[in-house]
Structures are given as structure tokens and as C-alpha cells.
């Protein structure tokens, strides 16, 4: 019995070690100032700061990785979220969007905040700094709507 456990334990450790050789590519390309939303728009610093803290890890090309992100299979789990997030909305490509798509991105952003679907609960569990108070969230929504109207009138 004891021996069987030992073998199983060693097997698991071996697999975990092997997994470390397979890591997804990291989501950190240099900031493109021509395309990044927060560089392009003139958001007040508290707004920009909240967007950076609460959204940019999964919705930009510059994830700020926690230490455990280097450990597989966690690295894959994080990578999956990042890819999905960027597919939905990538603030790093904002400058590429035409007027209508910018407004669309901003209204999607507004709706996700307003409905409380974003940031994800699983993300907030670990990222305390990304927790937005009701006032923060409202301020972000207001700013987003103003920005959308500004884009519309450009």
C-alpha cells in the first residue's frame, strides 16, 4: 500500500515537472502608442488607472503577470482567459477601429461594467486592486458614454 502511494506520488510529480516544459506564449508585446486606447484618449488619471488595473490584464497586449503564472497548468488557464478577453475587446488595438467600432467597443465596455459581468469574479478573487467600488464603476460608465459621444461627433 505505502509503496503504491509512493509510486503514484512520484508519477504525479514527474508529470508536473514535464508540464513545465510546455508554456503558452506570454502576452506582453511593447505598448504601441499609436493604437493603445489609454494613450489615445484623454481619460482623467483615476479613470485610466482603474481601467489599467481592472481590465488591461486580459484586454490588452500587456498583461501584468502574477508569479504563479509561470507554473503550468495555471499558465494555460490564464492564457485561455487572456486570449478570450482580447478576442472580445483589446484596448491595445483601439486605434485600429473605425468610428462605429470604437463606439461599439465603448458601449460593450459600458454594458459589461453596468451589468457587473466584468471584471470576472475569478479575477477579482485574486486581484484585490481590480475591485471597483460602485462609485468607481459608475464613474467609468459615465466616462465611457462621454467618450463614445465624443467619438461620434469627431
Amino acid at each position, binding site marked *: 500500500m505505502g509503496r503504491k502511494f509512493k509510486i503514484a506520488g512520484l508519477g504525479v510529480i514527474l508529470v508536473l515537472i514535464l508540464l513545465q516544459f510546455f508554456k503558452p506564449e506570454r502576452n506582453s508585446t511593447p505598448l504601441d502608442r499609436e493604437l493603445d486606447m489609454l494613450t489615445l484618449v484623454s481619460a482623467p488619471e483615476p479613470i485610466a488607472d482603474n481601467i489599467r488595473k481592472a481590465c488591461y490584464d486580459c484586454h490588452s497586449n500587456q498583461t501584468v503577470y502574477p508569479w504563479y503564472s509561470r507554473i503550468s497548468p495555471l499558465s494555460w488557464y490564464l492564457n485561455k482567459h487572456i486570449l478570450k478577453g482580447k478576442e472580445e475587446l483589446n484596448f491595445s488595438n483601439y486605434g485600429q477601429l473605425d*468610428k*462605429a467600432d470604437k*463606439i461599439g467597443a465603448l*458601449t*460593450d465596455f459600458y454594458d459589461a461594467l453596468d451589468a457587473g459581468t466584468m471584471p470576472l469574479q475569478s479575477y477579482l478573487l485574486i486581484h484585490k486592486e481590480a475591485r471597483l467600488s460602485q462609485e468607481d464603476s459608475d464613474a467609468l460608465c459615465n466616462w465611457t458614454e462621454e467618450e463614445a459621444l465624443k467619438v461620434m*461627433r469627431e
Partner: protein
Amino acid sequence: MKKQIVVFVATGVLFLFFQSFSPDAPSESVFPDEITTILKTSCYDCHFTGASSEKALKAVNFAQWEEYRLTKQIGLLGDIGKMVEEKKMPPGKYLENKPEAALSEAQIKQLADWTKQESDKLMQAN
């Protein structure tokens, strides 16, 4: 007898007069008839008040179009155009049961062109 006729006619005139205040008069709805026809056949089953899918109604509910704020309407028009052009909508699963809801190439183009026009129009007018 004469009095009755006068009252009757007056009532009729009054009723006719009321018609000019009809609240249901569609005040130049954003949707032209030919677009509404397509939407009815291919989209309303899931995207109109009364549909069962919360998710679909949340994405867009055409019955509440006028209640969406302007920027949201513009965003939705872009989404609708993209969804039909990329053939993500109507979904294949839905079309299995209702093949007549499938959009023809001409209808896809008509919808996509209209969403762009309407979006441009909204942006310019406001």
C-alpha cells in the same frame, strides 16, 4: 331625430380628430419595412420581447430599440452587420429547425448595407 344626427356626426368628427393624436403612429421608425420583414423572419424569434432566451434578449431586443441610448444603437448596428456578414447569426442550430429563417446572400448584403447607412446617419444627425 335631427338632434341625434347632429350628435352622431359631431361624435364622428371628434373621433376623426383624435386620430391625429394616435400614440401608435410609427414616428418614422428607424427600420424601413423591407428590413423589418427580414428581421421578423430571421431574428425576432429570439430577439424580440416574449422570446425565451434571456441571453439573446440581453444581446439585442428589437422591441426595445427606441429605448437604447444612441451610442448603444450605433454599437448594435455594427454588431448586427458583422454577425450576419460573418454568418454567425442566425445560428446554425436554430436554422436546423427553421430553415426558412436563413438569410439569402442578397438579404445579408441588404442588412449589412442598411446597418452601415443607419449608423452613419445616426452619427451625423447627433
